[in-house]
């Protein structure tokens, strides 16, 4: 290969490493992303102009290549720029699926290439890599599309009876087909190959289908590392160091990230992946428990309560995100501060749909950084807090996580809001949160419910406060 091309690939690999490293520190994160983007651009441009074909001639079909690049770049930029902050998670999932599909298509083309060249003179190792790239890429593609659909609400949670068994059979079927293909049985290799593709797609769909929305970030992170491995298969195939290092880095870093996300929710990966069934059973058992009554509070009373408090804590959750209420929330905070109330936010690590989701949303509304307290800090302050206002958060404040060992979320660290004097809970209804379990907090004597859409309620609170 051309020396400049190789140098570009080396620089590309280094920028990926440095970029990922920088992305894991808040101060350097944004620069890290740009560093990786620069390396990627360099590697792509170098490939287009310097990569030599087998015959030694440069690549051709430039029209097609640049056409494809232009379409992808324009659509990708527009989609990424226009997506609402609240829809970020499904956007990431969709882009991940595109990468998986790309790896899948590469495997299809290379397989046909191999078949025409005659399977005899090609090592089984290369065939194995192609099949691996196909399976992993396809699972990642199909799974990501389902995750995307589930997050934006177009696909409902659906549990297939015996789903786990079916998944196991599918997985076994994929292995058998791949072995047959590798071993060169009498069966038409085309049939085997596309049957593997079909089973992998089905597996990807069924694998994500039963997983609940709250666990979706973990699944997306896992599929993300899958796509990394699929990309690395391409690197093996083309003897391409930058694809190899980039893919494997994402594969391993992504796996660690997945495990860390699980830890933040105090769950094991196994629990997330196959626990979907068990969790709901416990929930229905817990639901039959005597709940008692809850009391409601009016907008007016809530406003008065907060205006005359010394310290108010706001606990944002997914309800705030879907209602796009971050700006009006900031307005409420400013009004209260003008009245001499100390206002802080308590952010649970997994509040919202993805870790860090709330921080990003509130930062978008210009809420100052020092007002956002992480869970541990916030928990130390609740005992001196007069009013806690919970905006569409549920499971992250559920005391069952501490008190009830039979609860599916038992052991998850929570925001201990019950230490405060008053708790106002804004929710749209009494419906349980994503874990599908009742929340005893809502029935405590010091808790009052304030029903309604988070944005509407906050707007009313703001106008009420202005009149006080």
């Amino acid at each position, binding site marked *: 290969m051309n020396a400049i091309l190789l140098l570009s690939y080396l620089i590309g690999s280094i920028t990926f490493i440095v970029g*990922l490293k920088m992305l*894991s520190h*808040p101060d350097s*994160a*944004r620069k*890290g*992303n740009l560093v*990786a983007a620069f390396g*990627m651009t360099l590697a792509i441009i170098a490939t287009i102009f310097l990569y030599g*074909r087998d015959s030694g001639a440069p*690549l*051709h*079909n430039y029209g*097609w*290549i640049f056409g*494809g690049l232009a379409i*992808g770049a324009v659509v*990708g930029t527009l989609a*990424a*720029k226009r997506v609402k902050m609240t829809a970020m998670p499904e956007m*990431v999932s969709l*882009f*991940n699926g595109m990468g998986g599909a*790309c*790896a899948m*298509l*590469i495997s299809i*083309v*290379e397989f046909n290439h191999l078949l025409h060249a005659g399977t005899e003179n090609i090592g*089984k*190792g290369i065939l194995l890599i192609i099949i691996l790239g196909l399976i992993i890429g396809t699972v990642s593609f199909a799974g990501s599309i389902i995750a995307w659909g589930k997050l934006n609400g177009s696909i409902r949670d659906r549990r297939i009876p015996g789903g786990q068994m079916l998944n196991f059979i599918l997985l076994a079927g994929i292995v058998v087909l791949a072995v047959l293909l590798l071993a060169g049985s009498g069966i038409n290799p085309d049939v085997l190959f596309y049957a593997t593709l079909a089973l992998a797609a089905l597996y990807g769909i069924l694998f994500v289908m039963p997983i609940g929305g709250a666990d979706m*970030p973990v699944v*997306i*992170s896992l599929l*993300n*590392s899958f*796509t*990394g491995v699929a*990309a690395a298969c391409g*690197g093996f*195939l083309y003897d*391409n160091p*930058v694809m190899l290092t980039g893919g*494997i*880095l*994402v*594969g*391993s870093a*992504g*796996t*660690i990230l997945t495990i*860390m996300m699980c830890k*933040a929710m105090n769950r094991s990966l196994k629990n997330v992946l196959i626990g979907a069934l068990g969790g709901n059973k416990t929930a229905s058992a817990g639901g039959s428990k005597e709940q008692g009554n809850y009391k409601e509070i009016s907008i007016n009373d809530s406003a008065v309560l907060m205006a005359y408090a010394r310290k108010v804590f706001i606990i944002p959750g997914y309800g705030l995100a879907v209602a796009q209420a971050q700006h009006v929330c900031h307005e409420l905070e400013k009004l209260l501060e003008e009245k001499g109330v100390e206002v802080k936010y308590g952010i649970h690590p*997994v509040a919202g749909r993805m870790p*860090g989701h709330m*921080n990003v949303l509130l*930062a978008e509304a*210009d809420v100052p*950084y020092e007002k956002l307290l*992480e869970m541990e800090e916030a928990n130390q302050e609740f005992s001196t807090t007069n009013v806690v206002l919970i905006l569409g958060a549920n499971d992250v404040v559920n005391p069952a996580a501490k008190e009830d060992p039979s609860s599916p979320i038992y052991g998850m660290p929570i925001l201990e809001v019950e230490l405060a004097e008053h708790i106002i809970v804004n929710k749209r209804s009494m419906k349980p949160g994503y874990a599908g379990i009742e929340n005893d907090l809502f029935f405590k004597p010091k808790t009052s419910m304030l029903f309604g859409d988070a944005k509407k309620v906050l707007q009313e609170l703001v106008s009420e406060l202005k009149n006080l």
Partner: protein
Amino acid sequence: MEQIIAFFTEHYDKITIVILSIFLGVEIIGRVPSVLHTPLMSGANAIHGVVVIGAIIIMGQAEADNYLALILGFLAVVLGTLNVVGGFVVTDRMLEMFKKKKSANSK
């Protein structure tokens, strides 16, 4: 068995890169604050878009009469570019918010 050994010796360098990269990936991530989980995932998501290079190579090598390679390769270039460009832009947008937070902090 012979084939496995042949594969191993032939691709020894790449296998070494794979093993070392696995350890590197684990080390790099180390202790990430949970606030950065989402942007980091999104950034990693953009990086695996490097698979688009494979698609470009397919396109660039495809003969004019190989419609399968041309069509699938073209599709792969589009999808791979979506992954790369969309991934980096989305990550930048997420991190832009953090930057604002910083400037508000230093005020």
